[in-house]
């Protein structure tokens, strides 16, 4: 099927860059088939949908964020300028929600990145039952956030499985979701449980792209496994790590099911994740203008994070 010289090294290796022994990146610019007209034909469905379902809502949201109205009577809107935005930074509940979400993201990252790295190292080795382990940790990834939240509601219940297990070792039941100091950690652990499979697989892909020669050369020079990991593997994985950090951050920022299904933000707002807070403000408190302003702020955070990633990876997009 393929004809001509094909570069068969995985794309990942090519992207490591820096080393002059790697083949140059192939430019995929075509010299044939120019013309905007066929391009338009091919692109229209995608761009049209993008415009209708991403850009127009963005514009609507920007407009809503300076208005005050209720979903019942959208025509009856009053212009309030920056009042909604000012309110974000003066409303105690919103500030708490932002801080909680921030703490949530941090908690997830601190747990998920090391855990998935360790698992990836494990899966990359020659130890037994690797496929089984990989399958098991990936189960939560393919499970919806609703089912995960439901399952964990029962796991964490006062008479649920976890307390039951604790009881067999003599530890008294913990409140988990009804305790102000345990609720947020509990949903962090749940989210880590759900995402660690994905992060592990991503790390695994990165690990497998590390050329074996480098590792072996270091081994020859007498470097132990830990030294090899620290000096060779980790630096080469920096791009993967960064990608995982960004993916996990975006997932955590968008978390909704834990607050909606498990806690409703309680106890005392310690699980009031920002997306849930926005949803509640728009649909229950009937303040979609304020909710839109908050959503714009969240969007800004997400864009900043993504831009940081792009910058740090210095990705070159081929045109």
């Amino acid at each position, binding site marked *: 099927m393929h004809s001509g010289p094909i570069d068969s090294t995985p794309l990942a290796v090519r992207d490591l860059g820096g080393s002059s022994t790697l083949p140059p990146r192939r430019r995929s610019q075509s010299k044939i088939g120019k013309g905007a007209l066929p391009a338009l034909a091919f692109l229209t469905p995608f761009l049209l949908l993008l415009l209708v379902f991403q850009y127009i809502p963005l514009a609507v949201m920007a407009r809503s964020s300076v208005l005050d109205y209720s*979903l019942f009577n959208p025509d009856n809107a009053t212009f309030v300028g920056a009042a909604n935005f000012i309110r974000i930074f003066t409303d105690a*509940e919103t500030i708490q929600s932002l801080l909680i979400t921030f703490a949530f993201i941090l908690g997830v990252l601190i747990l998920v990145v090391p855990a998935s790295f360790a698992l990836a190292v494990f899966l990359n080795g020659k130890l037994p039952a690797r496929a089984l382990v990989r399958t098991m940790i990936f189960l939560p990834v393919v499970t919806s956030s609703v089912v995960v939240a439901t399952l964990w509601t029962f796991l964490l219940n006062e008479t649920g499985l976890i307390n039951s297990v604790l009881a067999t070792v003599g530890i008294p039941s913990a409140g988990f*979701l009804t305790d*102000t100091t345990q609720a947020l950690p509990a949903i962090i652990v749940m989210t880590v449980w759900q995402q660690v499979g994905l992060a592990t697989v991503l790390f695994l892909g990165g690990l497998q792209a590390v050329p074996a020669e480098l590792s072996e050369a270091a081994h020859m020079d007498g470097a132990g496994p830990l030294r090899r990991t620290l000096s060779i593997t980790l630096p080469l994985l920096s791009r993967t790590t960064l990608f995982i950090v960004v993916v996990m951050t975006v997932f955590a920022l968008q978390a909704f099911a834990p607050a909606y299904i498990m806690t409703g933000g309680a106890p*005392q707002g310690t699980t009031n994740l920002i997306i849930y807070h926005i949803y509640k403000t728009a649909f229950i*408190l*009937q303040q979609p203008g304020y909710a839109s302003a908050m959503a714009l702020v969240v969007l800004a955070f997400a864009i900043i994070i993504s831009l940081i990633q792009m910058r740090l990876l210095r990705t070159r997009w081929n045109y």
Partner: protein
Amino acid sequence: MKRNIATLSTAVGTVAIMALAGCSAGSTPTIAGCEDGVTELSVLRAENNSPTDEQLDAYTAANKCVIFTVDEVPFGNLAAKIAVLAPSSNPPDIVGFDAPSTASYASQGFLLPLDDYLPAGWFDDVTSATLTENSWDGQVYSPGNEQDTLSLYFNKELTDAAGITPPTSLDTAWTWPEAQAAMLTCQVSATEAAGSTVYGLAPSRLGDGTPGTSYRDQLFLRSMGDPTAPESSSAYKTFYAISDDGTTVDGWLNTPEAIEGATFYQNLFEGPDAVTSKTGLPNALIDGKACFDLEVSSNATTLTNAGVDFGVSPTPYLVTPIVHTGAVTFGVTARSNNAEAAATAVVAMDTGDQYLDWVENNLRIPVLVSTTEALPSLSEAPLNIPVEEIQEWGVPRPPGPHFDAYDLYVTAALKNIAYGADPKTELDQAVAKLDPILSK
């Protein structure tokens, strides 16, 4: 081959899209004898709630040129669905909603005033709680479909075994300390007998099954008040829990009496006298996992069908006996395209003979005094307790156009209190969050 699969799924997808697009089109049927055409009224309601098929069919039987198409959602989603359909281009003609939300919907122009359609003498016949609940700014927005309230159900087997005889009339109703003592006794004896935890008071199934739902739990605050006290007194304000003009709750929700009531409420969940659980336990009373349960009147039917030997006692109180009234009712949307037909239908279903028949067949508690007097079953057990509670102790939940926000924050505060937060802090915070919203 993957290409063929891709082609196939594209084709199927296209067909599905076309089928779905086709399904959205519909046409009004024709009925013989209706030269003026058939009026089709669209109804939105909560599952298992009014207007029920029985009520709608009875109306069509009497007015064959009017038919109904029904859309229903789980009760917990009703408010959200209404919020979504209200601004749309074809809102439903008739909509079921929770009575306390009447002021909310009416003040935003969602509902149609029905004063012109109500029969003569209606204002004298309707119970005062219903009239207050279903009105806004001097106009009536729903004739009211039924009333309901909480009563204290108990498992006779468990209470007998514990040697407890709960009161069965309003005059001998328990105070909450008395009730708690009885619940504790029953809890201890039943747990011992069963070998696993049996709660004195079942965790409430209301809301999402976690504590705090204001329908039940705000009673602990309001019951500490006194409606007969002078209007400027703290006791009076505690009872009413919102200012008369609905613009503030400061000094109404966070009074010293309310805080005391909240502290008592908290000790039901924690401490040596705890009689209930902070986490939900579905079907606790039916499964024999609880001795007592505060439940609505339909629970009688549920328990009977489950074969439980039960009794009904009045809701306990702290200082003043009180129960919350308000059930699902239905009205007409202001932007309905068939307003007159819908309004006529709604009023006909909830007044006169059609109403009497429906109430009788379904063992509901009616909103009209005349209907109550016409049905002997309402003065007998088990419905006599809730009926009397409504008549003598019933007050609506604090009315106002921002009830949804009020309910949300009061429930959240009560939940936090149940979980162990400081009552004063929580109530003050609820006030701080509510006052800006209420004063708009």
